[in-house]
């Protein structure tokens, strides 16, 4: 995901999430693991794999434990992209 702007991250995260959860995830939907039975432990890792592959970022164990919602995912991806660009290590 070479040239995505930070503002475009959240809609893209929600689009990807909808693919894994097999349901639309709207811009204002507060999708949380606790309230989403389909977001099970296996889906959780699949979601993170998808984020890593799509955005070219790398998650770690503490990141994983901080993801409870679509907003959390978007926030972490944005932070990683911003840091990586600042360091010149991401596309």
């Amino acid at each position: 995901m070479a040239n995505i702007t930070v503002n475009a991250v959240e809609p893209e995260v929600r689009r990807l999430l909808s693919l894994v959860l097999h349901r639309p995830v709207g811009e204002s939907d507060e999708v949380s693991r606790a309230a989403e039975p389909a977001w099970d432990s296996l889906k959780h890792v699949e979601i993170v794999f998808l984020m890593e592959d799509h955005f070219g970022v790398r998650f770690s164990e503490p990141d994983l434990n901080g993801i409870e919602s679509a907003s959390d995912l978007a926030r972490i991806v944005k932070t990683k992209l911003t840091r990586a660009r600042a360091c010149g290590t991401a596309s």
Partner: protein
Amino acid sequence: MRHGIVTEGAAYRLRPVRVDDAEFIYELRRDPWRNRYLHRGAESAEAQRRWLEEYFARPGDYYFIIEARATGCREGTAGIYNLDPEERTAEWGRWVVRPESLAAVESTCLVYRTVFEALDLDAVYCRTIAENSSALAFHDSFGLERRRVLPAYLEVEGCWLDAIESWLTRARWRELRADAETKAQRVAGWKVA
């Protein structure tokens, strides 16, 4: 029963439960909300110790600790029991993983490897309370087949809850294994990152 089965994965291993795991198991099962769909655990570490002594004498029952290979840190439990040597089947359960652990996927793979390799069984099943939607979703996502409903299987606070029995055969495990273990290995990468 006392057994010597150890199954190693990328980041975790299953190893036999020991008496000195009683405190850990008691603490793991103490959270009433997280464990609301499990059979009631021991009331104290001492009661857990007594339960383990009885378990050691019970044939066809394999109880494991899930521990991190790198640190030896205990992150959960799993059990394989109700083994039927004629049908070559068993049930698996007592699966509890610490909330912050990444062991869910790999520990499941390790249970299935133990069932089909170490114990050389033909099929395994698990019984999940119907209201436990995230655990059911996990088994469905993994590729298990729901076969039947067990009415009024477990009493929780005066209510009798149904359970769903989900099965995995040796042939199905062959189909699922590569994908599941690839995921487990990638998760292991997060752990050491």
